[in-house]
């Protein structure tokens, strides 16, 4: 088994309203910044034990489908940063 370092980003789907993004945008405008289109997402970094890099990708996607994201309203990005040698 090899220890892989992976990264997952979870975002609300574009067509859904981002209440947090809306509030942060109004706050920044209120502070005088000229900003627009604020979206807020979550990012996870963790290590996963797995046989091969192709296998680790599958495991992380499974992790996202089962816990980190809800396919109905979220989109997510998976990247394998590297593995321990």
């Amino acid at each position, binding site marked *: 088994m090899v220890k892989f370092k992976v990264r997952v980003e979870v975002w609300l789907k574009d067509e859904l309203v981002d*209440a*947090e993004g809306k*509030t*942060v945008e109004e*706050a920044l405008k*209120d*502070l*005088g910044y000229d900003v627009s289109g604020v979206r*807020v997402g979550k990012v996870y970094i963790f290590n996963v034990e797995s046989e091969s890099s192709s296998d680790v990708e599958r495991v992380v996607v499974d992790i996202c489908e089962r816990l980190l994201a809800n396919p109905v309203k979220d989109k997510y990005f998976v990247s394998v940063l590297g593995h321990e040698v």
Partner: protein
Amino acid sequence: MKPKILIIRVAGTNCDSETARALEEAGASVQIVHTKRLIDRLLDLSSFHGLVIPGGFSYGDYVRAGAIWASKLYSKLMDEIVSFADSGKPILGICNGFQVLVEIGLLPGLGEFGLRSISLAPNDSGKFECRWVYLKPNGSNRVFMKYYTPDRIIRMPVAHSEGKFIASNYILKVFEERKLILLRYVMPNGSPAGGVYPFNPNGSYMDIAGICNVDGNVMGLMPHPERATYLWQYPDFTSKIYGELEYAYGDGYWIFKSMCDYIIEEII
């Protein structure tokens, strides 16, 4: 003349009414006002004797608890607030209010410590904590703690998800020396909680639950005194004999009473 105390609120603030009730019980005349009215100069902050920033989820606690409300105050009202504090008038920040005072640097104090030297991080349990806790007050502060005798153990409920007090060791040492720590989480028998959950409900360094600024007139605390104003609010009032419930007040009442007395003696 009654102390005139202002409670400010924004969208998401929700402990303002019971806080007003506690202050009125302690003899103050209270006004609850949306921060916008102060920013639009429809109301003059200096016309009040005391300021309270109540608990709640200002702006949904997005980004960080109290961060967005603090950013508005910092950019639109900071001069008025600083001069209000410098004039010695008492400012009390409860739960979300404490987080706001920390974010704008009024606690522990801009002059000496700069904008941000302490912070209230998410609880170690990773969850929202709503429970009653035991606290040891530091009676040396005359503004808020006048009625707490040194050996007294008091009880109040906490209800937050970002209440873990953190600061550098240097800052903690200064707080200890200058007696700026006003409340600490303790065991039921009064011995220090020592970070043990659930007596220390969030993992705060040195079990800190409430602090004040260098001058002692600005205080922030995570527990809710307005939810421990009357004895019928206590979790065990049905099993303990508290004498006639009408007049016996809870531990939280005495912070508001001390604040009002201080205003009458020092401000008016």
